[in-house]
């Protein structure tokens, strides 16, 4: 018979969400690091497989953003096989990706940002949780969130084949067109999703913007880093999640670089720290100067706020209005306040839903010609998309038969790894003085985490199914003097 046990609350994969804070001999913060577990052997696992398998394998890296991996992988295969998908196929892929961005941003705002912004940064810890969010927005609004996510995910299921790990992308296009009946459903979902996004922005305005205390937290100095920003843009330098050039702006908001996917290695290098297997990407032309911000440091950021900073606006009308409003209130571009990621995420939610509706209404999406068969010899391919948590790079090399010989991925959050360490360090410096650790430390670190929503090496699904946050505080001889954790 099965054994009965009670799970040790910290039973988990070693290293998950572990934060190490090192103090100097006076007991003040010297440096702070964020560690995640190492998943081993992805490159080796991929080598020797047919390249076409990659869009089905790579989504399994992550249980939260499989669709983004499927998209980046599909684009990498187009490049690898030197084939351009028909316009209809591109639109179908973008439709799926838009549905995914919308459902993921919805989840994030209500369930992750919610505890900080809907319930409030000063609310008692016991209420700052998902159930507290539901209490505040009401049961009907809670159901609205679950319902719209389900309908958006239905688009991914129908077009992608499977919601968890979509299988529709092939080199040169997609495996399935859109039927008239499904299109009608997508249009209705798109319309309702746009309304939902407006509802979310209204809730943000009512609950957050009308409350001076909240606004002060957003625009305050905490987690403010003057970094470079990166994101995909279309030909008008407007935000695009699926395609375009990669644009980088400097800490003053001026264009620093704009390049094609294929050129990414000319612009990005990765720094290695002895204490972590994570590589910290930085801008090659600026150089690695450590975990610091400013124009002379190659640290850059990605994901919602970075995308908005790196662009000249949104490609859809309602989102453009919200984009302008955000920068008006926060004092112009670029915005460096990390907590503004939550607001930028909602602007992007509206854009994703408007774009979804535009694509669903486009007649071309019914065109049954959804694939161009590749005929060229494969060699090397790079695919880049915007995932909810930032710019995602897939790079494959193959032999003449299309058998994988090399793989390089830069997953979205890794781009933000350096600034996550910087935010933690900044919070810790204010809350640890002469060896005394303020009770606020855990809350403040969590707030930074939620803004970035780190998504590193999270491919495991073992129980307890969530990753407790743990902070080790070490003295100048690296002995642990205190551990605080959220179970």
């Amino acid at each position, binding site marked *: 018979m099965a054994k*009965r046990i009670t*799970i040790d609350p910290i*039973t988990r994969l070693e290293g998950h969400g572990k934060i190490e804070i090192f103090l100097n001999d006076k007991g003040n913060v010297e440096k702070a690091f964020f560690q995640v577990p190492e*998943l081993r052997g992805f490159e080796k696992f991929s080598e020797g497989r047919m390249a076409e398998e990659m869009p089905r394998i790579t989504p399994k890296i992550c249980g*939260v953003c499989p669709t983004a991996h499927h998209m980046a992988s599909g684009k990498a295969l187009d490049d690898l096989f030197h084939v351009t998908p028909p316009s209809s196929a591109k639109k179908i892929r973008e439709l799926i990706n838009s549905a995914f961005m919308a459902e993921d941003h919805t989840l994030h705002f209500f369930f992750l940002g919610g505890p900080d912004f809907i319930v409030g940064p000063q609310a008692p810890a016991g209420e700052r949780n998902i159930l*507290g969010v539901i209490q505040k927005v009401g049961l009907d609004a809670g159901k609205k969130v679950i319902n719209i*996510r389900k309908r958006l995910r239905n688009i991914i299921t129908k077009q992608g084949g499977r919601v968890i790990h979509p299988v529709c992308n092939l080199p040169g296009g997609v495996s399935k067109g859109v039927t008239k009946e499904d299109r009608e459903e997508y249009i209705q979902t798109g319309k309702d999703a746009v309304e939902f996004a407006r509802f979310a922005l209204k809730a943000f305005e009512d609950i957050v913007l009308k409350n001076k205390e909240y606004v002060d937290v957003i625009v305050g100095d905490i987690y403010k880093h003057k970094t470079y920003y990166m994101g995909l843009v279309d030909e008008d330098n407007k935000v695009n999640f699926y395609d375009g050039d990669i644009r980088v702006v400097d800490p003053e908001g001026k264009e620093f670089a704009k390049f094609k996917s294929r050129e990414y290695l000319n612009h990005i290098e990765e720094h290695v720290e002895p204490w972590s297997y994570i590589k910290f990407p930085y801008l090659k032309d600026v150089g690695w100067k450590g975990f610091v911000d400013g124009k002379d440091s190659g640290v850059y950021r990605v994901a919602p706020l970075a995308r908005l900073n790196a662009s000249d606006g949104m490609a859809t009308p309602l989102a453009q209005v919200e984009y302008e409003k955000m920068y008006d209130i926060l004092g112009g571009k670029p915005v460096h306040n990390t907590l503004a990621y939550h607001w930028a995420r909602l602007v992007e939610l509206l854009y994703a839903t408007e774009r979804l509706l535009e694509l669903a209404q486009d007649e071309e999406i019914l065109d049954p010609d959804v694939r161009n068969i590749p005929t060229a010899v494969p060699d090397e391919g790079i695919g880049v998309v915007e995932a909810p948590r930032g710019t995602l790079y897939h790079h494959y090399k193959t032999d003449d038969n299309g058998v994988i010989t090399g793989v390089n991925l830069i997953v979205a959050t890794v781009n933000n790894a350096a600034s996550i360490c910087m935010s933690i360090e900044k919070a810790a410096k204010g809350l640890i003085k002469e060896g005394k650790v303020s009770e606020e430390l855990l809350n403040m670190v969590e707030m930074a985490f*939620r803004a970035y929503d780190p*998504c590193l090496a999270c*491919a495991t699904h073992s129980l307890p199914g969530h990753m407790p946050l743990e902070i080790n505080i070490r003295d100048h001889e690296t002995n642990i003097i205190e551990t605080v954790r959220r179970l």
Partner: protein
Amino acid sequence: MKTLILGIGNPILTDDAAGICVANEIKKLFLPNVEVIETSLSGISLLDYVVGYERLIIIDSIKTEKEAPGTLYKLKLEDIGNSATPSYSHGINIRTAIELGRKLGYKIPKIIEIYAIEIKDNTTFAEECTPAVKSKIPGIVDEITKIIKSDSPPS
């Protein structure tokens, strides 16, 4: 009793797939009134699946490092930590998803049983479980199948 079996895991991360492997074997038995879903989804998204069933059986992996790989544990929902204050999207687990579903008034299964399989390695990319876990899977399948067939879950 309308039953859902949810096999949770990552099929390309060695033993992480243990729950999926067991669920897959049970699926082949075509038990009446039992639906089997294998999934790699996390958190709130699991809620979409479970609504409408009377009985939910979750099969997942666990790494306590206290027992031999392949050991089967029976857990209650309350045994899993509450994750209602997540720090990241991956920070929401099934217990919180179910509590949220109940709060929102969805029809959540009244009976929820969780079976967890002690594993050895969930950090290496591979499509097969380690031999120690793999060899225990048939026995675990038999055990869980017997419990399902009895239709009266042991308390």
